[in-house]
């Protein structure tokens, strides 16, 4: 009778008796995964906590509304750097977003053409190039030819850094849109560009916004290219063709100074930068998920 048992059935019987062992192994593995996740989060929480602890003391309303004071003069703020960062990142977005979105559509629609392959390859290379190189490049193209540092050259450098990120995320998000949606639109007699604009982009929107946010978060914290381009400015300026203060550059200036008072301000500025980027991220995510819910009908 026993001999009638097939090897598979026999294995099933054995497995049934190993139930407890399996259960324990399962729990241990799950615990290990949880531990790894915890380890991955620790640096983030640590950095955040540390920046808050060091920076929160120097924060005040004045810090957001005043201009920097010379060494030794108490008070003062980073209004110029907040506005400057907004301007430079804004320029970067204005250049980068239209270019990367349209290029992403091209790569999506014609992935195997020479140009499509070229774009994908060069964005991969570009995203690996250190940001300081972009700074030097923008310096050569803009600053040297114009003879002075400017907000515009800073925005240009950041746009080059941002483009590969936004382009590749957008392309990946477009690939996730079901092909049947594209077919549905084309079958109604929509031209390619109409389909892209009216169906693909809305369907991929939340992912595209995530890509843009990733790009902004990345470039908003870039200090190295700013040294060669926006240069920094102790005064309030909104002129695009003049040097301009930015948050990461301000952190750099404060942090390398030998003055205690400035070092505290470096921490506070870092805190402001992190908070602004996170705030922007939360708002964008909120808008994206609200829109998504509306489209999906809850």
């Amino acid at each position, binding site marked *: 009778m026993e001999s009638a048992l097939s090897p598979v059935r026999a294995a099933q019987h054995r497995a049934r008796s190993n139930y407890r062992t399996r259960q324990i192994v399962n729990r241990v593995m799950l615990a290990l995964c949880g531990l790894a996740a915890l380890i991955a989060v620790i640096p983030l929480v640590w950095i955040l906590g540390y920046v808050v602890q060091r920076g929160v003391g120097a924060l005040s309303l004045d810090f957001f509304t005043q201009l920097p004071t010379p060494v030794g003069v108490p008070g003062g703020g980073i209004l110029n750097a907040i506005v400057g960062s907004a301007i430079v990142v804004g320029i970067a977005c204005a250049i980068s977003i239209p270019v990367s979105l349209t290029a992403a559509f091209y790569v999506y629609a014609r992935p195997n053409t020479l140009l499509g392959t070229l774009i994908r390859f060069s964005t991969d290379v570009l995203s690996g190039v250190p940001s300081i190189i972009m700074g030097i490049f923008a310096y050569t193209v803009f600053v040297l030819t114009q003879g002075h540092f400017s907000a515009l050259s800073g925005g240009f450098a950041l746009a080059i850094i941002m483009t590969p990120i936004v382009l590749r995320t957008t392309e990946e998000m477009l690939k996730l849109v079901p092909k049947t949606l594209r077919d549905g639109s084309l*079958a*109604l*007699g929509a031209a390619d560009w109409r389909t892209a604009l009216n169906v693909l982009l809305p369907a991929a929107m939340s992912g595209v916004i995530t890509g843009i946010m990733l790009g902004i978060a990345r470039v908003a914290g870039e200090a190295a290219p700013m040294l060669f381009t926006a240069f920094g400015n102790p005064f309030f300026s909104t002129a695009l063709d003049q040097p301009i203060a930015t948050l990461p550059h301000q952190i750099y200036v404060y942090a390398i100074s030998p003055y205690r008072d400035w070092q505290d301000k470096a921490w506070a500025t870092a805190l402001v930068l992190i908070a602004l980027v996170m705030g922007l991220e939360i708002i964008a995510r909120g808008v994206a998920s609200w829109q998504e819910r509306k489209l999906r*009908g809850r």
Partner: protein
Amino acid sequence: MMSHEQVQVLPPALSMRSVQKDAAPSPKMLVRNMNFYYGSFRALADINLEFPENQITAIIGPSGCGKSTLLRTLDRMNDLVPHARVEGEILLDGENIYAPNMDVVSVRRRVGMVFQRPNPFPKSIYDNVIYGPRLLGIRDKKVLDEIVEKSLRGSALWDEVKDKLHESGLALSGGQQQRLCIARMIAVEPEVVLMDEPCSALDPVATIKIEDLMRDLRNNYTIIIVTHNMQQAARVSDYTAMMMMRPDRAGEMIEFNKTRQIFTNPQDKRTEDYVTGRFG
């Protein structure tokens, strides 16, 4: 408020049909010596077929015999497939849709398509329906409102959605979504309607609704449907084309006739085996 307009869109051939009762209606689409290739692989071989005007033609056959490929050549959806190539002619009202000077976009506006899985756009019901008319440049809100009502009535969906036109099309059930896709297609008033297994993702109740709808649409449109379901072909179609895969894996058309003939008195042994369920 809409019946008048619907009468106007009736093609002239309808009246002709009642005169010559037994003769086959004039073909709306004609496939002549058509070969279809994916790269060097021949997927369809020597297809000759006619689709009579204002009739429902079913394309049946075992899996992989090229039914969907054939259907997609009829509105040039295969243009999207890299290395796809068509030889021969496909005539729509006597004009070759693969002629070099033929505009793909206008072909697709005259030949609409309903897909296997419902694919409403992630937009409101209203915006789904007016998507095509908007592409045609219709901007007048009143006209668009009328198109929405007419199309949704035409796809037997109006009563179920008239109070929630501005809710997402994706919130509807599968059968409703498919009828929304039909409404979206008839909103551009095509002449030919292609349906690629339109009920395969639907439950029996929704399937019956779509089939009823097809019988209604038949008055205004030439309908071509691909189906795996032989009962469905027998129930709804006037004509049936039977396809098979040849040993070299190319799809071929082995029999075309009135549906009643195909199911009761098939000429080809393979058709008989297939429709009686002996294989496939």
